[in-house]
């Protein structure tokens, strides 16, 4: 029997996060309440260790573990993104958990495990591995969504996410089973080879691809599979909402691109037209319904649906430019949205008392700093030049036009204009309305300040000097398309 080559370097970041996650989980019952925030910092240490482990991982380029696992600059880019998301989410959560009286440190462990799941999705070269990563991510996120156990909305959120999430996993798994039936393998490269050489049963393969697409579209919440997102995002604890709106979304798109670029290039004309429709629908629905949301968490939920639509535009573009635009946009959107959610977390006060848009009235006269920061994130989400959101949208629409998807780019630009209304409405509330309250009990604490500093720096850096990260995403895209 062949014993697989064990290459710990290739999976070192995932190992690091797993070890720290297990350590935090086991330590929880042994640590007194007063010292629990140390475990939060331990989780931060875990993300730093994982970030450092990216260096040895990047030296192990190639396929490992009997071709289950692939290390290329595409997977390393997503590893970097996921670790960053996890770190910012942990920083945002630390004081939130204390404030809400739910400082159970399993939270950090679950967050790290979810990140490991996302890494497995981005780095896998095999559909079974993708499914495993998807489940690790999903199960951890179901629990996180219901983390405010005594809150009815949080329970509703977890339940909805669980039911629809497991349903979509079933779709994905059905697709995997059919593609195994059609090609005799679950390895992406073997699937692509057998589709290119033999006479593939096109209808069966298309059905399998469609089922997998449905499963993943649920996870990334694009229309018409987006209906769960607003309720789930509204009920979940705010930092978890931030995490869910970027982490699983980025991981879903990472897998989507990997599967469709590697395994189904022969069906490209079929699935790009599907993505055309999905992208157009998602941008329209997300942006239009976001206009009338009074609750900022729901508004950001619809905005995150809309942003998934923009990413789908780049997926439809399909080329090297499209893939690199997807990568860049997920990074830019993650940084901006996590920042926005950090501010919302801070302002929402205990048990989500103040999450309506008119609760933000007059924030600028009482807390000018916070108002300025939130304005920056809103402008970046809308896509004002000089921010990360603008650079991301620019590359996406450029890729769409280069691939000849003029009309899709037009729809994208028009819906972007629509989106300005609801993003700027937050700024209008903050700067042009009289304050209802003093905002005296809003505290900016150390970890939150750090999270804001990282996200502000990221938003501005990606907006003003995008070239360095763009080079990275282009080389990752070239890698993924090979």
């Amino acid at each position, binding site marked *: *029997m062949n*014993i697989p080559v*064990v290459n710990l370097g290739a999976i070192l970041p995932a190992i690091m996060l797993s070890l720290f996650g297990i350590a935090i*989980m*086991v330590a929880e019952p042994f640590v007194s309440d007063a010292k629990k925030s140390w475990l939060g910092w331990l989780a931060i240490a875990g993300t730093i260790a994982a970030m450092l482990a990216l260096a040895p991982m990047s030296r192990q380029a190639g396929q490992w573990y009997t071709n289950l696992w692939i290390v290329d600059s595409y997977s390393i880019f997503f590893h970097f993104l996921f670790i960053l998301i996890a770190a910012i989410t942990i920083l945002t959560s630390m004081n939130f958990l204390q404030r809400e009286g739910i400082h159970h440190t399993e939270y950090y462990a679950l967050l790290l495990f979810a990140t490991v799941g996302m890494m497995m999705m981005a780095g896998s070269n095999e559909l079974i591995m993708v499914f495993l990563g998807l489940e690790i991510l999903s199960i951890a996120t179901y629990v996180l969504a219901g983390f405010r156990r005594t809150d009815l909305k949080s329970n509703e959120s977890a339940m909805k996410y669980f039911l629809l999430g497991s349903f979509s996993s079933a779709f994905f798994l059905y697709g995997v089973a059919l593609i195994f039936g059609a090609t005799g393998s679950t390895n992406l490269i073997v699937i692509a080879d057998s589709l290119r050489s033999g006479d593939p049963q096109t209808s069966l393969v298309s059905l399998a691809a469609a089922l997998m697409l449905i499963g993943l579209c649920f996870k990334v919440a694009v229309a018409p599979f987006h209906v769960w997102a607003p309720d789930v995002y509204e009920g979940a604890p705010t930092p978890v909402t931030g995490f869910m709106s970027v982490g699983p979304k980025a991981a879903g798109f990472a897998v989507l691109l990997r599967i469709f670029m590697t395994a189904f290039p022969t069906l490209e004309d079929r699935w790009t037209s599907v993505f055309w429709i999905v992208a157009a629908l998602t941008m329209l629905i997300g942006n239009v319904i976001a206009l009338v949301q009074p609750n900022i968490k729901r508004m950001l939920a619809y905005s995150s649906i809309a942003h998934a639509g923009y990413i789908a535009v780049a997926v439809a573009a399909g080329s090297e430019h499209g893939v690199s635009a997807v990568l860049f946009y997920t990074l830019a959107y993650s940084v901006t949205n996590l920042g926005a959610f950090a501010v919302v977390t801070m302002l929402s006060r205990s048990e989500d008392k103040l999450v309506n848009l008119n609760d933000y009235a007059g924030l600028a006269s009482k807390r000018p700093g916070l108002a300025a920061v939130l304005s920056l994130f809103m402008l970046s989400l809308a896509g004002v030049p000089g921010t990360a959101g603008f650079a991301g949208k620019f590359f996406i629409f450029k890729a769409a036009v280069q691939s000849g998807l003029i009309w899709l780019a037009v729809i994208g630009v028009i819906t972007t204009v629509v989106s300005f209304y609801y993003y700027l409405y937050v700024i209008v509330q903050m700067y042009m309305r009289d304050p209802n309250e003093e905002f005296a009990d809003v505290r900016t604490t150390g970890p939150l300040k750090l999270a804001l500093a990282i996200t502000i720096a990221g938003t501005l850096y990606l907006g003003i000097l995008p070239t360095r990260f763009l080079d990275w995403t282009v080389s990752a895209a070239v890698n993924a398309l090979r």
Partner: protein
Amino acid sequence: MLQDWAPVLVFLILVTGFAVVSVVMSYVMGVKKPNSRKLAPYECGMQPTGTARERFSVKFYLVAMLFLLFDIEAVFLFPWAVVYRDLRIFGFLEMLLFIAAILAGYIYVWKKGALEWER
């Protein structure tokens, strides 16, 4: 290709046929002397008392869930044991890692008090 599956079809027909025939035959040929004891949902001689749809403690679910978890993990030991000789030291170390991860979960569950019935 479809002919390869002919035994399955024959098997299906035989199984269904056997079930149908035995039920029908016992219905046709059986002696019927019903009384209230015999028609009770569980014919075991005991008189049923109360309803089965009562609330019971959530602890049962917790224990059942933990049992299921550790049970499933133990199931992984069987395929491992089958190929143990071929995997040699590699398989042994991998299984040690797996058991260590379960042990960490066990310690967590124990210290959390999930295994204690009375608290």
